[in-house]
């Protein structure tokens, strides 16, 4: 993979258009993320956030425009692009018949990445999964526990691009704080993070940039500045009443 090319940004989206049948969901989306950068994507329900992620992963073909993951077009080389991505879905799907540890081992085995048991446990701890759950079948897990297993998996995949779809939606406030710390770790590792969220405060705490998606494109973007980083009140006003395109 060509990570070091100029065009080899972890994520590059230019003028992306995506249609679901006659319904245009993304309409000229531009979005690039540098290594080690955390980008929070906000927007109302149905704005096209999950669709953006699906297009990045090659599950939705672009009608026009460009998507590149480390220089690779996921539409034409999905397998290659996906190897560079870790993904935390909005609704985490795990193998119910396997334990938390077995799930991780299986998925890592599929991606041919070797991690020691200690590394896996460290990831569980970092994700905040209680220890007595490591070797339990996930069939009995709560939404938040599943979320933590999937977060651990994303952490264990050492990849240039991490996609998070509402990562804190099932987490309690403490776990949310833990998670925000994890993002810092990903930044240090040099991974680019694209995080879809409705949690404005978390975004303001962690993101280097915050973009608002409306009517299929980024209508406003704020960059963290100074010790206060963002004018959260202004962000909130914007978030609550997004402009119509």
């Amino acid at each position, binding site marked *: 993979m060509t990570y070091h090319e100029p065009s080899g940004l972890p994520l590059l989206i230019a003028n992306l258009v995506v249609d679901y049948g006659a319904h245009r969901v993304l309409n000229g989306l531009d979005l690039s993320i540098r290594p080690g950068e955390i980008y929070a994507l906000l927007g109302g329900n149905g704005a096209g956030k999950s669709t953006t992620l699906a297009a990045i992963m090659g*599950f939705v073909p672009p009608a026009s425009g460009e998507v590149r993951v480390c220089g690779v077009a996921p539409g034409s080389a999905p397998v290659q692009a*996906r*190897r560079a991505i870790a*993904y935390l879905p909005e609704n985490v*799907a795990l193998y119910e018949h396997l334990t938390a540890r077995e799930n991780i081992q299986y*998925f890592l085995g*599929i991606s*041919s990445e070797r991690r020691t048991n200690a590394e896996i446990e460290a990831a569980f701890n970092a994700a905040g999964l209680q220890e007595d759950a490591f070797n339990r079948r996930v069939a009995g897990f709560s939404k938040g526990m599943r979320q933590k297993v999937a977060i651990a998996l994303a952490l264990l995949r050492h990849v240039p691009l991490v996609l998070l779809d509402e990562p804190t939606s099932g987490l309690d406030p403490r776990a949310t704080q833990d998670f925000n710390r994890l993002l810092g770790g990903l930044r240090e590792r040099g991974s680019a993070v694209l995080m879809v969220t409705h949690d404005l405060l978390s975004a303001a705490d962690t993101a280097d940039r915050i973009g608002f998606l409306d009517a299929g494109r980024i209508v406003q973007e704020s960059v963290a500045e100074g010790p206060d980083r963002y004018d959260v009140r202004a962000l909130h006003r914007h978030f609550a009443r997004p402009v119509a395109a």
Partner: protein
Amino acid sequence: MSALTLIARDELWLMRRSRVSVIAAALLIVLVVIAGITSVAHQSNVADTRARLQAQVDEEFDNQPSRHPHRMVHFGHFIFRPLPPLAAFDPGIDAFTGNAMFLEGHRQNSANFGDVRQSSILVRFGQLTPAFVLQTLAPLLIIFLGYGAVARERGAGTLRQLFMQGVSAGTLIAGKLLALATVAALIAIPAMSVLIFVAAQPGAAAGPIALTAAGYLTYLALWSIIVVLVSASVARPRNALLALLGLWSVTVILLPRIAPDLAATAVPQPTRLETDLTLQRELRAMGDSHNPDDPVFAAFKQRVLRQYGVRRVEDLPVNYKGLLAVEGERMTSELFDRYASEGFARQARQSATMDAIGTLSPAVAMRRLSMAAAGTDLAGHARFLDQAEAYRYDLVQRLNRLQADAVSFEDDAAKSSDTAAEQRSRIDPHHWHAMPDFHFAPPEPGDLVRRASPAAVMLLLWLLVPALLLAPAARRLEGVRS
């Protein structure tokens, strides 16, 4: 471990964890084993019985006292069809066609005493043979174990997470296929053991057995591919199950059952009664050897007299009645042969229709391959009938010749009124010993393979279709939204 083997292993592990799957698979394997054992036992039983009965009737024939040769023509002879070794695997139509024949002068009898006519109604539901279990039940098990292979992951959302680990849909499908093929192999092991046992029997030939083994392995592989293909092509496991069960009922249950009916409609075969009636009519038209004014036999008489250069039949050096019997048998047999070959031609056309229907169902192709290689199909039966008729004709004509050569015309003519003449017209029993016994000549192995190969080609084509559809299915799967 590679992603492929990891996926296959997990799929197998999941099957093993499901009690229903394990019981179903174990049940089927046990069924194959039981079918193999009972079928082999039944076959050797039948073979023993037929050999014993054949020896018994041969001896009875040989032990007849001094008789007039024509009495022996009507005493007749029984022959039995020995079963080919592969009948232990696939008895084919043997249970239905009958396997014993009564041979006598002036007529061609059909084979009698098929198991179905003799035993309880249970046999009609289909014998438990390895062929039946593999053709009919094994696909059902493969469907039940495999329908969810891909569709289940798609429904649960784990498919997307799998793809996000950078696995290709091709690898995923190959892994699932490997798991299902492993189950298919487990079913195949007892079946192949039966074939190996059969191969060790006297008279067994490697070619047809190898073709049978290859055919069933192809058939099981074919179903594994179909199941994974459907599972990868539909959105929900339930839909995959319904589609596969529909496919199974039509191709495995319905088409093989209606194929013979369709063939019979396409090429109507007159009933036995109709055939007998027209045959009798033609026989009567042929002439009457007992009527001195009959033109056909009057001409024959003139020909014989001329040939021997005498004026009266009494002056012939041979018994004219014997010559008459030889000629009569020749004429009636010619007529019978014509009817028989017309019948076989119709059956061959019906078989061709069945072949055409076989293109619609791999199960029909598999059945035809299996029976043809075993020699238990219609062609195998026809071979028995052919040899039986040749033997009957030879036996009857030998007896007729004996009448011509060993019984004097005077005695023959006077035997009903003169007891001394009647005594003299009886000939010594050593003549019965001299008659050849019936020995069925089994088909050449190469011949069986040749007969089975059209169905084998059809099966391979069937394998090709879903195999070629796998690649586009994988491409579609790789881009699925959920």
